[in-house]
């Protein structure tokens, strides 16, 4: 796979570390225990478009949100995770 890092340009996927689902948001400190449980343990596993976090470990050290179709590996977008909320 080739991932177009917005900072470094197109690079081989072996430069990146995969971190899974980009959707979970860390709950506020006063959220119930269940919210933290879900944040830590629950992940979707769709067959289709998926927004996931990748870390450009052998590059610029950016955390990226990669929108990838898990069936075809087609990558629709790559953006910085910073400010993704």
């Amino acid at each position, binding site marked *: 796979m*080739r991932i177009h890092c917005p900072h470094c340009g197109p690079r081989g996927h072996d430069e990146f570390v995969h971190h899974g689902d980009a959707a979970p948001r860390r709950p506020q*400190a006063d959220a119930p*225990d269940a919210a933290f*449980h879900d944040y830590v*343990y629950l992940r979707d596993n769709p067959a289709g478009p998926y927004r996931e*976090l990748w*870390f450009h470990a052998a590059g610029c050290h*950016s955390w990226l949100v990669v929108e990838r179709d898990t069936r075809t*590996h087609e990558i629709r977008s790559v953006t910085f*995770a910073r400010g993704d909320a």
Partner: protein
Amino acid sequence: MSARLPSGGLIDRTRTLRFSFDGRRHEGFAGDTLAAALLADGVRLVGRSFKYHRPRGVLTAGPEEPNALVELRSGARREPNTRATVVELYDGLEAQSQNRWPSLRFDLLALNGLFSPLLGAGFYYKTFMWPSAFWEKVYEPLIRRAAGLGSLSTAPDPDHYEKATAFCDLLVVGSGPAGLMAALVAARSGARVILAEQDCLFGGRCLSERIVLGDGSAHRWVQSVVAELAATPGVRLLPRTTVVGTYDHGAYTAVERVNDHVAAPPPFEPRQRLWRIVAKRAVLAAGALERPLVFGDNDLPGVMLASAVSTYINRYAVRPGERAVLYADNDHAWATVADLRAAGAEIVAIVDPRPDARARAAVVARDAPLLTGVVRRALGGRSLQGVEVVGADGHVHRLDCDLLAMSGGWAPTLHLTSHLGAKPRWDAERSMFLPEQLPPWLLVAGAAGGELTTAAALSTGIRIAEGSLQSLGIAPRGVTPPVAGEEADAWTPLWRAPSGRGKRFIDFQNDVTTADLELAHREGFGASEHAKRYTTLGMATDQGKTSALNGLATLAAFTGKSIGEVGTTTYRPPYTPVAIGALAGHHRGPDFRPTRLTPSHEWAREQGAVFIESGAWLRAQYFPRAGETDWLPPVIREVQAVRSTVGLCDVSTLGKIELKGPDALRFIERLYANGWQTLAVGRARYGVMLREDGRVMDDGTVARLGEQHWFMTTTTANAVAVYQHMQHCHQVLWPELDVQFTSVTEQWAQFAVAGPRSRELLRRILASGEDLSNDAFPYMAAQAVTLTDGLRGRLFRLSFSGELAYEIAVPARHGDAVIRRLAAAGEDLGVVPYGIEALGVMRIEKGHVAGNELTGRTSAQQLGLGRMLSTQKDYIGARLARLPALDDPADTQLVGVRPVDVKTRLMSGAHFLPLAAPTTFEHEQGYVTSVAYSPSLGHWIALGLLKNGRHRHGERLRAVDLLRSQETEVEICEPVFIDPQGARLRG
């Protein structure tokens, strides 16, 4: 008997090459393959088959060869299962036939053929079922001896392999007419082009067939095109390079056989090079593979693909037989008749199953009989002597011949289009599987796309390249294809094999016959993927290149489905076998990954250090002196030196991260479980970091060097993971925090100076103004310092050993000089270097947790660090760390362990069991995590994780090590063995 023609071919007759096959000496010419040279010397029997040990000859002239597999070279370079049809001849080549015993001509195991009813499809699932204990000891070794391909050299590979990456606009796979045209269009248009050809020569079919292009031979045309390509900037020609895999987003793997055509690679050259090619567009112009026909004993040496016969005649000037029969269901194969005649062979007959071909074939047949019908069976012992033909009228003819050239039409080589999972589509009208669902960056031209004539290959090559370039925004420059003559290409495929005597082979390499497929179908394994597993059809080195289509057609006939409905099995990389060495490249042995050396490595080596791998680092384990032959005496001596005088240890491998910014404190507060608000500038503190699930991730120290300037360390093992975690926290969770940080692990050399006389030693290398008194620089102080020569460094009063101790950090490039200065300055104090063994002993004596306890499964509470968990703030893991399950008394807790009999040794990994209870899993109560011989106490000590251990100090248990068959009675104690009040480190 030489079968070499007096002239012609693309061989260099001025260069005679000597080689041996099964110890017999032969000669060939430069430009030969091993198969061509053997055929030229009249060798027809080249191997024995996998299961039945039947005699086999050369079937093809390419990488699809299923029969002519040989062991090449000798000694450490011996390589089994090389295809003689693609092995380039070199002087001194040694080859051995495989899978025969005691010899190729006389193979005792050919008796297997008599037992073939026992060895049918799925035989190993059925025949050797009972008794089950016999499988491992009797049946499997027996079968492995009888059935199998070549044997490996078990010596280390002496050759060198390398990897390379290349980028281009257009990758062209294959250099036949279509590939050359595509490459030429792209080259003339200024695109970056890579042309990969598996053969040593460019040209594809132009090398094998007598084709006229324009006003000359196709071969001359090839040479002019290749010359132009070679002279065009931006074009990379890769002969001897097989593209073996297609990967996502236009990435390809190719193997370049840089030095397989010589006896051994020259100095400093690799044997093979593994390419990763990243191409914006790729044109697959890999051609097509000819299909064998199925009839009784169709595996006899002398039965050959028609295209192979033409190749041996036209390219290698070898006449594969004297009296030939052509058996084909298509007009294209008639060219082989002309080639045979030109080579001086007699055409015994042309056998064609198509009644409608009779009139057209008459022109080709000339004086040879033309039989409308099918070949029922090949006749002969070790070599073909004749064929039985059943005419359309049912009349059986027996023809004497020593060569049968067969052709069942052509199957596009579409493997690379299916590696991403797309299934090829069956085109019933054209009787071929064609590429389907191609990604926009992968295109197909020529025969690979079903365009079988030269004229169509030329024009599709141009058209596809032009389209590709346009889609990249590159204006294509016009190329006019040479005029190609008319080619006969009518084809009515013959799928059904005639019934009759003899084995009708579908897969030559795996000895799979129509009977095996029938059995598979009868037993419910008729789906293509099932049949493959049940019969081994299409497995091993050729991966069904000559057998897949016949197998599917046979299954289709049994199931009453169409070939398209049966469908192909899945195509996976690699297209042809790849040496493991090529995949590994440089990454083998000690070079498996880069080795990181500490700044004091050279000095430590001079001190006689024994090194040990610690992650990617090489660290000094201990420093034996003369006479110290075992590891324990130097470790004891080093510990005693630190506890009595002073020692030096390189701790640069700790992860080091520098943080700055107005929100650095806030960031650190959220990162660590304990509090930092009260940490003053110039002070350091121990910190524990959790994962969000509440378990301990890592520990280390954080020093506050300025109001907004912090410096933290991680454990050696977790340095990369912690840094990545911090980036995640900052970029993903809290991008609003104004903090910057970077890893400085490589930038600083850091040395522990530990022991009662460490202060005295440091004073000798620090500038006179530096005050190291306990008041000015107390325990946990952290400050910038100046050395006597003006070098700036940092000094931390940290102690892992429990003694008065410091860590001094200097820029890494000064590390070697500073460790030498420390050693020299402390000589009269008795300073010793100590390694990570002594470091480990002292941390166990002090009860500090390390990797053996920080397993990722332990909570802070279990490790006795529960009091550190702040309740005043939010931090990573704060919430789930408070779950009762993480502080459950039924769970294990950190304890100290000492043997009741102080002479006994403790074993790491031993399990705790009550004194009286039996040694069973349900009585297991925890285990020993770290052990050390404590020189200070004079006996072995350990740390362990014990259920409810904090409340069991003083209790006696058994520590049972079932792996080493050892049991020790132990007493549980406080996990601190030395100076529990910490008086020494504050002294």
